[in-house]
């Protein structure tokens, strides 16, 4: 599991330092701090950002808001973001609300509020509400990563690193080349959101990354994967797996 990368856009060093302190304490990686609009854009496009924390007012101007408006209209570039503000000025809020998804944090805030706001931003951005806040699930699936709530903070796992997933009731064991961990997510959601060209079922309880398959042994009903992992291949899914594998 990797840390989540955060970009902070904040012009007051004291505030950004406080933020960094809290975030680092909860295993977030601060990928950069920008104090103005231009720096923010540069950092945003040149680093792998997962979440942006934006102070609406930069040097007295609503440049943070402008930045958010800027990135939210670029397709594929947009990332989840959280607004920081010290005023509930209605006009500013009405404008900020138009940048979808909209989540904000009122200064002063405590660390719980900050962490909650980050989670909410991710949920809203990937349109998978009530994941981190409810009790049923703890993982959000994006294009490239799984965002997993671990304790009070978030972690991420690159989807392409996954070798296979073993489903046990409402838990899923994720097996990568280096780790194995359990997350709370429903099988249907995985099947729905994972790229079906890459991941396919071999068994009622197994989902396999086809790119990690090293060998298929139909006689033994086994699929061999990278890292000497073995997965059962049931009759129900055998044909489709064979077909796909042969075609490649």
């Amino acid at each position, binding site marked *: 599991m990797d840390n989540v990368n955060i970009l902070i856009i904040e012009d007051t060093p004291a505030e950004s330092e406080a933020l960094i302190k809290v975030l680092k304490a909860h295993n977030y990686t601060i990928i950069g701090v920008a104090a103005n609009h231009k720096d923010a854009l540069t950092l945003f496009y040149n680093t792998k950002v997962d979440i942006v924390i934006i102070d609406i007012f930069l040097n007295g101007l609503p440049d943070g808001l402008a930045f958010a408006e800027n990135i939210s209209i670029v397709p594929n570039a947009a990332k989840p973001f959280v607004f920081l503000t010290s005023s*509930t000025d*209605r006009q*500013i*809020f*009405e404008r900020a609300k138009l940048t979808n998804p909209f989540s904000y944090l009122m200064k002063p805030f405590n660390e*719980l*509020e900050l962490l*909650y706001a980050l989670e909410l931003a991710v949920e809203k951005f990937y349109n998978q509400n009530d994941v981190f*806040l409810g009790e049923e699930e703890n993982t959000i699936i994006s294009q490239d990563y799984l965002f997993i709530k671990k304790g009070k903070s978030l972690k991420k796992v690159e989807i392409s690193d996954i070798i296979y997933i073993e489903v046990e009731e409402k838990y899923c064991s994720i097996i990568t080349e280096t780790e194995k961990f359990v997350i709370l997510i429903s099988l249907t959601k995985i099947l729905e959101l994972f790229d079906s060209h890459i991941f396919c079922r071999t068994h009622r309880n197994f989902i396999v990354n086809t790119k990690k398959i090293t060998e298929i042994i139909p006689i033994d009903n086994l699929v061999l994967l990278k890292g000497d992992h073995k997965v059962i291949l049931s009759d129900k899914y055998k044909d489709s797996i064979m077909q796909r594998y042969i075609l490649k």
Partner: protein
Amino acid sequence: MKAVFRIVIFSFLCYCQLALGQQNYSPFEKEIIAKSKNSIANPDFTKAQYFFLQKEWDSCFVYAMRQLSVDKQSEDIKNFCHFFRGFGFKEKKLFKESKKEFLHITNNFQFHNHIQMFLGEIALEEKRFTDAINYFTEIEQLHPDKLLGIKKSSVKHNLGLCYLHLGKYDKAEHYLLEELKLEEAQNDTSVLVGSYGDIATLYYDQYKDNLAIPYFEKAYQLSKKVTNYQLKQNAALNMAVVEENRKDYAKALTYRKEYEQWKDSLNDQNKVWEVAELEKQFTVKQKQKEVSLLKAENKIKIAERNGLLYSAIVLFVLLGTAVYFYSEKTKKNKIILAQKEALSELNTTKDKLFSIVSHDLRSAVNAMKISNAKLLENLAVKNLDELDSLLQRNSAIANGTYNLLDNLLHWALLQTKQAYFEITAIRLYHCVEQMIYNYRPLMLEKNLVFENTISKNDIVCADQESLKIILRNFIDNAIKFSKENGIIKMYTQNTDEKYCTLLIEDNGIGMNTALQTALLKETRLLSKTDNEAISGTGLGMQLCKSLIQKNEGKLDLKSEIGKGTKIIVSLIKKQPNG
């Protein structure tokens, strides 16, 4: 002699007209009315008949002519039309036209005998005496039943006249005497005068003066009884001529005078009539004038009355509007007065708020000042243990003051409606957790136990910031009014369909009932609690009430002195479908 002759002719004409005017109509009328009933389809004929009866000859001619110009019609109607015209012409003394019309009538016409009679009369008028005699003798020989109103006496009279004019005195005498007999039987004085005159003239023409004179005298005597001046005049003149011829000039003169007198009275009568006519016209004009004058007066009166009416209406309307505006004004004044009172009340509240807030702030800052001075002292002597507790206290004071200022700010924002307000779905558990986070150290200091048993699935509809303010204030209060080692519990009840009820329970000092009701009352005035030492401005409570109201929630509280307080906040539940 000539004069006598002329007079006789004159008397005959008069007689003839009388006979026609009075006696010959009724059979005609009956017949004509009956006829017109049968021919309602002929409006012209009906009109002709009407004008005929009214003796308006010209109109009668026109309609009769019109009726004749129509092609298809019965012979009977044709005959009647010709008859109307002939009769009319005869009355107007247009004898030639009359004769023409009468000759158009066929022989089977029911008034054929009348026509014969009229033709005879016309011949007599035209002095064709022989023709006239032919007509009259024809009628005379008829049976009396067929005469239909033609008087035998008049026929005989006419015959007598004809013979008289022709100089056949014996025949004339015969007819006239016969007529006289008939007339005497009828005993019509005015006719008798004429008849006597005629016979007298007859004898007189034959120079049989002895026979003539008694008739003249008779005529004269009778004429005195009649009112007809013409007859009186003629009789007197005849007597005058007779006496003149007898050379009795004195008598002649008397008769002449009498004659003149009758003539004058005739004229006088005419004059009197004329004058009467003029007077009548004059009076009519006078009346007309009066009438028009009255009309004009009436008009003026009506105009005056209308004017009065209109002005009254206008005045009334003006009065009405004046009253309306006056009442509006008083209403407005009342409203303004009420507003003024409310405003002054608010102003007092604000002033009070200011004084309380500033007092609180002053004491807080003052405490901080003193604490800071102590801190510096302790720092100088490097008493580190004391430093720590002092800093803790400072931090607590700063926190309290900060909360007060925060509430003040939000209160102001709420009053001016400047704050952003959006109701969204909020997970109550997390929100409470976040708020509690700030109070952990405080609770630790007082050694309080905090329990958050709110379900993670409780989702309410509220504005995030205002919900946070509400929670902060209630938690703050709960801590403030808790004793050492107390317990604060937060939990929800989902008994209501619409509302999720959040309870904040402590086992602190509690409140009396009066204070509870005062806190819940819809009042703008701030209540100062008895517990001066730890109670605040009441601003927090007011702010919470307003915010809960704005979030469409409800607030209730239960408290007992010494046992603790239960704050009950009901917020709208997020419905599963929305």
